[in-house]
């Protein structure tokens, strides 16, 4: 049934995609994730009082009521249960959170134990927390995945939730479980169930192929959107994940396109022969910012995402470019060299009240407002380090020390910043993550070199 739907989509999209010579096959949209059980146990207290980095969590394989075939795993639902636990373990471990132990080093609980853990089995494994879960194949091929978090010292359930997912979306259930655990234990908002758009780079420094690509927050489900025949740069997901705006040289000039992921169709952000750069979405998805050069002078414009008359927001002889909305959509932080060097400015969303906020002594570029609203991440374009400051420009802190780090993008919960790092001489690039302390830095594995990461919000 699903195959038929996909084939139809492909058929519809083919003639449209042919207009743009650089788009690959349309990407099928993910299914809905239905939450079937949750919200209970939130009142229970957590016994552990210490650094969350030291919190041991045992994550054995998820149990299944009956080991049956599923499109999600060629070996059946029992094997899928182990995979779910592995994805959760990797999420928590790779982000430097907690001390998770995965299913490969633990016994496998039975289905009946998921709601009634056999605590003595787990008590000598150095884990303060225990995760149990199950996976069940439904008659319609969908999967029900349940996720339970238990406090070992209290022998008490802390939280539980369940989801119904399409077989192709089974990893989303694992990310949702990781989010549930992370949120319950840290008090922070979730971020694992999200996606990243970025530019995949291959080839020598003077002839780099740059393709638009997307992946899950952990790098899985990687897909190329463009073929690489023309250079693609600076993608941004729409907040609902239905569209991608990005720069392409597909007609020989740098222009911003809005690509509809479901249909494979794309349109120019504005009908103009002028070059356009730096696409950005408003948090509610109603507006797109873009920057346009007219006779060499670049200014920031705003256009309704459904189309319509653009409005020019900046009007100076300098380069005004980029822009990132505050979470409430009322203000925009952007970059301008009107003072003589790149600096960060804030304006109201209609372009009024423009004022410079960066005075730390270096060049301020690519500002990005945190989804929490309390910080602005930016590139220090004098030293090429990713830094943060308050929305008024205070408390500047440098988080990274690469040779050239730039283009920060926030995790949906505003706790992790992703950016790209360029190596001296070779020009090789990679995606990196750093937390707000600057202490936990790691490279995100991508199939080829990567740049211009753009982290989307929590999936709807």
């Amino acid at each position, binding site marked *: 049934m699903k195959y038929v739907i996909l084939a139809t989509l492909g058929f519809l999209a083919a003639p449209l995609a042919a207009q743009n010579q650089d788009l690959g096959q349309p990407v099928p949209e993910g299914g809905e994730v239905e939450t079937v059980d949750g919200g209970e146990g939130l009142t229970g207290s957590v016994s552990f009082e210490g650094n969350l980095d030291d919190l041991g969590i045992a994550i054995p394989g998820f149990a299944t009521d009956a080991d049956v075939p599923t499109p999600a795993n060629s070996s059946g639902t029992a094997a899928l249960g182990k995979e779910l636990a592995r994805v959760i373990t990797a999420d928590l471990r790779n982000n430097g959170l907690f001390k998770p132990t995965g299913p490969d080093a633990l016994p496998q609980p039975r289905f009946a134990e998921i709601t009634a853990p056999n605590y003595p089995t787990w008590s000598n494994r150095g884990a303060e927390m225990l995760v149990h879960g199950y996976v069940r194949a439904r008659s319609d091929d969908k999967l029900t995945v349940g996720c339970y978090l238990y406090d070992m010292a209290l022998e008490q359930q802390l939280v539980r939730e369940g989801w119904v997912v399409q077989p192709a979306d089974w990893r989303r259930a694992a990310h949702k479980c990781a989010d549930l655990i992370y949120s319950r234990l840290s008090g922070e908002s979730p971020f694992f169930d999200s996606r990243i758009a970025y530019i995949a780079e291959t080839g020598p420094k003077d002839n780099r192929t740059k393709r638009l690509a997307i992946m899950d927050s952990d790098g899985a489900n990687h897909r190329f959107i463009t073929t690489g025949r023309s250079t693609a740069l600076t993608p941004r997901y729409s907040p609902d994940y239905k569209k991608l705006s990005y720069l392409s040289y597909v007609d020989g000039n740098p222009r911003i396109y809005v690509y509809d992921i479901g249909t494979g169709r794309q349109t120019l952000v504005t009908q103009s022969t002028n070059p356009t750069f730096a696409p950005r979405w408003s948090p509610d998805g109603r507006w797109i910012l873009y920057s346009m050069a007219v006779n*060499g002078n670049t200014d920031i414009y705003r256009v309704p995402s459904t189309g319509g008359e653009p409005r020019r927001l900046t009007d100076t002889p300098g380069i005004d470019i980029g822009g990132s909305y505050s979470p409430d959509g009322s203000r925009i932080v952007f970059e301008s060299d009107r003072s003589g060097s790149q600096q960060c400015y804030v304006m109201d969303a209609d372009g009024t009240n423009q004022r410079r906020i960066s005075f730390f002594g270096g060049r301020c570029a690519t500002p990005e407002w945190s989804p929490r609203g309390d910080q602005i991440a930016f590139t220090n374009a004098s030293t*090429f380090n990713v830094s943060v400051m308050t929305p008024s420009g205070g408390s500047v802190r440098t988080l990274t020390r690469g040779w050239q780090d730039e283009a920060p993008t926030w995790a949906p919960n505003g706790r992790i910043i992703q950016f790209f790092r360029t190596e001296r001489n070779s020009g090789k690039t990679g995606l990196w993550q750093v937390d707000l302390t600057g202490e936990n830095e790691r490279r995100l594995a991508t199939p080829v070199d990567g740049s211009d990461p753009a982290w989307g919000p929590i999936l709807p």
Partner: protein
Amino acid sequence: MNTRIATGLMLASTIALGACAKKAPEELPPPPVETATPTPTAPTGPSVGTQQHFVDAVGVTNTTVYFDTDRYNIDAEDSAKLQVQGQYFSQYPQLNFTIEGHADERGTREYNLALGERRANAAKNYLVSIGIPANRIRTVSYGKERPVALGSSESAWAQNRRAATIVIN
């Protein structure tokens, strides 16, 4: 308008003569004609409308102007080069051409795209000021995406901060 073009041509010719004394002398008032071209029109040579013809005619160093970090102003050396280019494009009014603006790698990607566009326009504006019609000149910025010098050194960066004129037809 005609006066402005004529002035531009005079200026361009004067400078070109100063810079390259071996070029065939030109009469100032009449528009340049094919026979005044210094390029030997050997049957095997590159034909008008190719990049090679342009390079051979103006000299490879005159095809590209260079900029200081974050700057886009046309200095004396740049204007001398652009005047040689202007003379060439006055001689071949049928040619349209592109100015590619570039930046070095030590800048953020989006800013460099805007900076390259500004540099390409600075070169274009100079050519327009000496009489080349604006509608013959296309500009395109590649930001830091297309370096010619591949190292990460001051000298490499200096070579990459450029506006390069490319003949297309």
